[in-house]
C-alpha cells in the first residue's frame, strides 16, 4: 500500500464516519416522541380518539380547517398551546374540474404534509408557544398558489 492508497483510504474512512454520524442523527431524531411525519391513513385506523383531530381540505386556492365541533374556517384556525393535534389532510376539487396536489407547510412547527386527491394523510404536532404562526402551500397548484397561505393562532 503506497502513500496515495493510504490517503485515499483515509478520506474514505472519514467520509464514512461522517455518514455514520448523519445516519445516527437521522435515527435518533425520527425516534423522538414528538417527531411526526406524514402518514397515509385513508381508513382512519390510526387516528387518536380524542377531539383534537382537525380535518383539513386543500382546494384551489384555499385551506379549509374543520375542527371536532364541525366548525369550518378558511385559511386560519386556532389551537390551544401544549395540546397535541392531529391534522387529517385531503384535497378537494372545490369548484374546479380536478382536485390537485397541495402541500401544507408550517415552517415554525417543522411539519409539512401533502394533500393528495383520494388519500387522507395525517400528521401530529404540539404547539409549545402562544402566538400567531404562518402556514403556506408549497406544492405548486395553479394560478393563485401563492395565496394559499394563512395564519394559525396558538392561544393559552
Amino acid at each position, binding site marked *: 500500500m503506497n502513500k*496515495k492508497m493510504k*490517503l*485515499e483510504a483515509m*478520506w*474514505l474512512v472519514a*467520509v*464514512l464516519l*461522517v*455518514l455514520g454520524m*448523519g*445516519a445516527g*442523527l*437521522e*435515527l435518533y*431524531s*425520527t425516534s423522538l416522541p414528538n*417527531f411526526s*411525519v*406524514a*402518514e*397515509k*391513513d385513508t381508513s382512519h385506523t390510526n387516528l387518536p380518539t380524542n377531539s383534537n383531530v382537525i380535518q383539513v381540505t386543500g382546494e*384551489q386556492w384555499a385551506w379549509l380547517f374543520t375542527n371536532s365541533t364541525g366548525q369550518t374556517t378558511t385559511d386560519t384556525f386556532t389551537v390551544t398551546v401544549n395540546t397535541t393535534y392531529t391534522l387529517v389532510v385531503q384535497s378537494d376539487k372545490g369548484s*374546479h*374540474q*380536478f*382536485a*390537485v*396536489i397541495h*402541500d401544507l*407547510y408550517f*415552517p*415554525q412547527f*417543522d*411539519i*409539512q*404534509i*401533502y394533500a*393528495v*386527491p*383520494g*388519500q387522507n*394523510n395525517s400528521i401530529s404536532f404540539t404547539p409549545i408557544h402562544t402566538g400567531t404562526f*404562518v402556514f*403556506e*402551500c*408549497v*406544492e*405548486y*397548484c*395553479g*394560478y*393563485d*398558489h*401563492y*395565496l394559499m*397561505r394563512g395564519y394559525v393562532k396558538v392561544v393559552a
Partner: protein
Amino acid sequence: MGTTVLLVEIVVIMSVVFAILFFMYYKYLTGKTEADYEATHDDYYDYGSYLRDNQRKGGFFSTNNFILNDSRSIGMRYLMTAIVFFFIAGSFGLLMRVSLIEPNPTLFANNTVLYDVLTTEHSILMIYVWAVGGALGMAYYLLPSFLKLKSDKYGSISSTAYWIYVLGAIFILLSRTSTRWYFYPPLALQLNPYGAGAYNWLAVIGMEMVFIGVTIASIITVRTIVMDRSEKVPLTKMPLFAWSILFTLLMFLASAPFFMSALAMLFYDFFNPIFFTGVGSSPLTFAELFWIWGHPIVYIAIIPEFGLIYEILPKFTGKKVFSYNSGVVGLALLLPLSELVWGHHLINSGFGLHWAIFFAMTSFLVVIPSAITIFNYIGTMWSSNKIRLTTPMLFVINGIFDFIIGGITGVMAAMTPVNEQVHGTYFVTGHFHFVFMGITTGILFAGIYMLWPTITRGRRYNQRLATWHWALTAIGSFVMSMGWTVGGFLGMPRYVAGYFARYQVYQDVAIAGGVIIAIGQLAFLANMFLSLSQNPSVSTNNAFEDAYDNELPFDDQEEPEGEPIKTPAPAGGR
C-alpha cells in the same frame, strides 16, 4: 379569415420549408460526395471520420455544423443550441427574479401566471437543453479525439436525433406551460390559464421528443465509447471524461424510460383521464415515476462536468489527476446510488416513516462517490507546484467550492426531520443552484473557454472580460443561492409569485445575486463579439484535444513516477 387565404398561407410556408430542406439536402449531398471521394483517397474508414479530422479547424459558428454529419459538427450544434437556450432561459430567470422584489406581485400584478410560466420554462430549458445538451455537445465534440475513434458512421442518425431534440425544446418553449418541470398530473391536465397552461399537451409532446432525441444520441455515444475506440486507448486508460459520459448516458438510459412512459400515459390522460386521475388511481403514481427519473437527471447534469474538471485540472496544475482509479470508481458509484434515492423528494406525501428513513439512508450513501471525486480534485491541486489561475481554472475552483456547499445542503435536505422543514422551500432551490451554477454552468463555460481558439477559428478571448464573467457569475450565484438557502431554512416557499413580507430581505438578496449573474453573462456575450471582430491570431488547436494528440509535444505533463511509459498516456491516465 377565409379558407383561401389559409390555404395560400399553408402553401407558401410549406414551399419555403421545402426549399430550405432541399437546399440543406443539396449542401449535405455535395459535401458528402466530396468527402466520400476524399475519404477513399486518404484511406479513411468512412467519410465521417474524414470530415471529423479535417473539419477540426472548422469553427463554432459555421453553418456547416448544421449540414455536415460528423461528430464534431454535431457536437458544435448541441453546444450552439445549448448556449442560445441558456441565454433565453436565463433571461426568463432574471425577469421572474426581478418580479419578486416586493412581497406582493409587482411586475405581474394582475397576471401572476406569467411568473409560473417563466419559472417552468426556465427550469425545463436549463435542465434539458443547457445541462443535458451542453454535456452531449462536449461528448460529441471531444470524444473522437479523446478515444481516437476508428469510424464515425452514425452521423445521420445522430443528426436526426438532434433535430428531434431541438424541435422538442422549441415545442416546450411554444407551449408556455406552467406545470413546473415535473408535470404533476391533476394540475397538468387543467388546460387553462388558471391551471397549468392552455397548451400543456404540446409541452408533453416536446418533452417526449427531447427524450427520444437524447435517447438515440445516448445509445450512439455509448456504442461509440464501447466499440469504436482505437486499440491505442484501452478501457483502463480511457480519459476520465469518456468514463463520465459513459456513466451519465447509461444512467440516462436506465432511468429515462420511467418518465417517458409516464409522459405517454399523461398524454393519453388529456383525452381520456384513466391513468392518474381516474377512480382508484393516485396522482402520486406519476410523482413516483417522475422522481425515479428526476433524481438521476440531477446527476446527469453534473457527472459530465465532473469529467471535464478531470480534463481541465492537469492542464493548469501541471500534475496528473491524483488517482485515476478512484476517479472512475467515484463516477461509477453514482450510477447505482442515484437510482436508489428518488423517494427523498416525496417524504411528506404520506409515504410514512419507514420509507422516509430508507431513502434518507440511501441519500447519505451518495455522499461517498461525491466526496471521493471532490477529494480527488483537491488532491490534484494539493500536489501541484504552481496552479495557473486562468479563467477555466477559476471556474473549476469556484465549482468545487460551490459543490461542497451544494452537496452538504443536499444531504441535509434528505434527512427526514430537516426535509419536513425545507421541502418545497427555497432551501432546495438554493441547494441545486449552488450545484447547477457552480458545476454545470461554470464547468461548461470553462470548457467553452478551453475550446475558444477552435470555435472562434484562432482568436483569443479577452482575458479581462473573461475574468469579469467568472467573478460576476461566481459572486452572483453565491449571493443568490445563499439568500435562498438561508431564507428557505426559515420557511420561504418556492415557486410563489408573492410571499410573506417577513421573507423580503432574503428575496431581495437573491435578486441582487441574480442581477449580478445576468451582468456577468453580458460580459460573456461581449467577449464573443469582441473576440470575433478581431483577426485570427493564434493556432486553432485547443488544449483539450492537444492533450491526447500523439503528434504534439506533451509539454504540460510531467513524467509520472515509476517506469516511463512509451507513448504519452492520456491526461489522467496511469
